[in-house]
């Protein structure tokens, strides 16, 4: 992986982290207000979910270069 490609991947990771954090926070607030009587834990849970999704996406993106791909040949 070249330096430029790695830099772009990290940029995408950070942008995705910000987006998922905001989305998790927003959805957590919505669920907290609508279902859980304005408690704090749904907000924290939603934020944590968002950050976890961002981490997982980052991990897959950074590992994608080194993943082996194979096809199963059909028996004729």
């Amino acid at each position: 992986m070249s330096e430029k490609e790695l830099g772009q991947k990290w940029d995408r990771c950070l942008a995705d982290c910000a987006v998922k954090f905001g989305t998790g926070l927003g959805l957590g607030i919505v669920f907290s207000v609508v279902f859980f009587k304005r408690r704090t834990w749904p907000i924290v849970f939603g934020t944590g979910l968002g950050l976890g999704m961002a981490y997982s996406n980052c991990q897959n993106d950074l590992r994608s270069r080194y993943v082996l791909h194979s096809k199963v040949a059909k028996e004729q």
Partner: protein
Amino acid sequence: MAAKILPVFKFATKVTIAGGALYVAYDSGLLGDSKEGSVTLGRAKAAIPPAVEEWMKYFGFELHATPKIEFSPLDAWNSGVQKSIHALSVTPSTVSDYTKQGLQYVKDLTK
């Protein structure tokens, strides 16, 4: 009859609101891949200034222009790393030079 329907209606409304929020988040690509996430962030950044301007016009007051900070943390960090590593690499020769100078000074004093 109405007393029985009302809680069901309230619950259905809540489910609709929460489900709608979840669907909007999914549909706009906020819960997807990292590429989709960065595309969505770019779109949001482009959409915010016109939206802020419209709201300002609607309410009839102006925001002060945000001061532009001409500082790049990336450049500062990179130059810091380069300077530190350069300093580390010249340390042995610098130390030996100063040691020689010090020894020479002491020799000159004892003469």
